[in-house]
């Protein structure tokens, strides 16, 4: 009796593991099969004798690619780059950060002959760096971090604050209560930068706009996100936006008859209240990495691209009363005439951060207390990447 039950338990456990693993398994197979029809783009020089065909790229994702958010957009980028370059690609998803699974997955891909590894979550950074050191013949690209080396390890990120600014313009034009709700995950520079840019854009259309922020302390939890969104509606917001991975905020906006500005991808198919969204497009950047690595001339860089590079963008909603202004701003961002954080910037408490020339009038620290800028400095990328203050018009604490 005892033995039978123990056997059954083991069977059950195995079944459970199979079920858990199933998802990623057949996805990976399906993913690899699409790029096999080698396209005409044979501009790769291939002096090594073997040609571009032995380049294989593997992508590591932190959550399921079906999440309509961050990971979904990376998979779209992978498929786009595969089609453009003919480089075979594969991926695994749901790999936790800082886990043995990550090491296993990367090592497995290397053992299987993959010579381009792209890791797409912030806390993969240190492990990716280590792998790059240990495998000098493999190209590594890490997304959303800041580390690199001189030979085979670079990083990529996008200036999402540019489309966020334009999204703020659309939001302000859609608001009648002059109050916009912003459901945000964590008080880190990336999110704070987005909130500030959004607020500046909204104020460019209507100086009376206030943006109220609620922190959820989670990237993905529809229950909490929806609750936060409802709290913002209860507090008077009639436009909602978010920096999260689910569409829960949009559901609440629809229910409340409010307007929803999404994030990551076009969510019009799922959310009735959807107006537009700042979106990611990793295809151009991944195409660049795959083709340069396949041609053997990959040069690591810290790539922080904007709308002009095609890595981020926003669809201008035709019905918006400020559609023309939004188009104009988008153009001037692309051709470099306008920068979101140029000119005078006032902090939440009304004190000045920069003067009219865009130079700091106070010393700035990041949230860890490290100095990132001194009086007189221009508001450069280093300050943007460590941004820990809210601009005027934001309601909520920048400390999370």
């Amino acid at each position, binding site marked *: 009796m*005892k033995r039978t039950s123990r056997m059954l338990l083991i069977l059950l456990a195995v079944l459970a593991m199979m079920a858990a693993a199933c998802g990623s398994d057949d996805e990976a197979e399906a993913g690899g099969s699409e790029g096999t029809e080698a396209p005409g783009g044979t501009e790769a020089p291939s002096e090594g004798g073997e040609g571009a065909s032995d380049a294989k790229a593997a992508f590591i994702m932190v959550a399921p690619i079906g999440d309509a958010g961050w990971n979904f957009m990376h998979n779209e980028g992978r498929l786009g780059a595969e089609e453009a370059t003919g480089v075979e690609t594969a991926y695994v998803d749901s790999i936790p950060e800082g886990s043995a699974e990550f090491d296993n997955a990367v090592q497995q891909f290397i053992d299987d002959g993959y010579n381009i590894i792209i890791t797409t979550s912030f806390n993969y950074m240190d492990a990716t760096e280590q792998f790059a050191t240990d495998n000098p013949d493999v190209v590594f690209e890490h997304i959303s971090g800041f580390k690199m080396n001189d030979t085979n390890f670079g990083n990529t990120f996008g200036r999402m604050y540019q489309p966020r600014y334009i999204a703020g313009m659309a939001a302000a034009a859609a608001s009648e209560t002059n109050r916009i709700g912003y459901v945000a995950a964590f008080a880190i520079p990336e999110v704070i930068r987005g909130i500030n840019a959004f607020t500046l854009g909204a104020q460019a259309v209507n100086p009376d706009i206030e943006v109220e922020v609620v922190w*959820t302390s989670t990237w993905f939890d529809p229950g909490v996100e929806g609750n*936060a969104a409802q*709290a913002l509606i209860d*507090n008077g917001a009639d436009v909602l936006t978010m920096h999260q991975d689910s569409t829960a905020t949009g*559901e609440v906006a629809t229910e409340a008859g409010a307007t929803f500005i999404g994030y990551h991808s076009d969510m019009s198919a799922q959310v009735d209240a959807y107006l537009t969204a700042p979106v990611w497009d990793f295809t151009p950047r991944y195409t660049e990495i795959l083709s340069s690595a396949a041609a053997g001339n990959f040069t690591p860089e810290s790539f922080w691209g904007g709308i002009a590079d095609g890595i981020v963008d926003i669809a201008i909603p035709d019905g918006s009363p400020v559609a023309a202004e939004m188009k104009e701003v988008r153009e001037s961002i692309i051709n470099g005439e306008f920068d979101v954080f140029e000119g005078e910037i006032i902090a939440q408490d009304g004190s000045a951060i920069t003067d009219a020339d865009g130079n700091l009038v106070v010393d700035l620290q990041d949230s860890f207390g490290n100095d990132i800028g001194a009086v007189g400095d221009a508001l450069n990328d280093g300050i943007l990447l460590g941004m820990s203050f809210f601009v005027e018009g934001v309601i*909520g*604490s920048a400390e999370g």
Partner: protein
Amino acid sequence: MNETTLIGLFVAVIEFGTLLYLAALGETIAEKSGVLNLGVEGMMAMGGVTAFWAGVETGNPWVGLLVAAVAGALVASVHGLVAVVLGGDQVVSGLALTILGLGLAAFLGEDLVQERARAKFGSLNLGPLNDIPWAGEILFDQTAVPWLALALGVATWFVFTRTRVGLILRAVGESAAAADSSGTSVVKTRMIAVMIGGALAGMSGAYLTLSLAPGWSEGTTAGRGWIALALVIFGAWKPGRVGLGALLFGGLLALEPRLQTFGVEISPILLSMLPYVLTVGVLVLLSVRSRNRPSVAPAAIGLAYRREER
């Protein structure tokens, strides 16, 4: 803080309370029969995904709720088979059930992730009742599910304390051998209790994906099943107290982001810890108290019953 935000808070308290109560009530029934089922999170996930699927297919949230109950009961029957029929370890089997349920739900729901939520529970329309200030919006502008949960809670209390069925259930949970010798089928009773528990956990998942946060994605249950488990202990295995606990824990979940809009600065991370801190506190109280009094926990909980080993 004003009237609207306060009413909004109370509405959210009832919503999250309902979510927790359905699952915790089911677990209370299972544990009363002596079976600990740590698979609540997995059963909830299975309920959530099947309910959302049925909702998308039929457009009717009630069909979704029913399908979720059946799915939850079926998943629970796996635990029943291992832990009750075969006498396997309840803790191991329950944990395996969580992993199985979460994995299976993710697998089944792959194509549902970007699906529009077509079926949602609508608000009750009770005419004049809805117009009562405060109570109208808080109690009657809800969907029917919180009321259903309340009814189920009262029914469970009634069965536990006032009926022969309840007596048998409790006897099996206190001393399976004694119940067995009085002619009660321990296996049958426990199996039914576990499956009812699964059905309620499934309904909790359905409420999540069809009302509280319409939509499906892997990870939607986000650990609420574990809070429900803690809640059973917090409520000392009594349907009424578990209900009050559900409002308290649900209130903490509802408050988490809302405190910020009230201008109160408490770390949301600290708040999300509170249900567990409270549960540990209650556990300590219970064990201190039970030094000189019989424990409130079902005496046979976690113990497999095998007749030949009596």
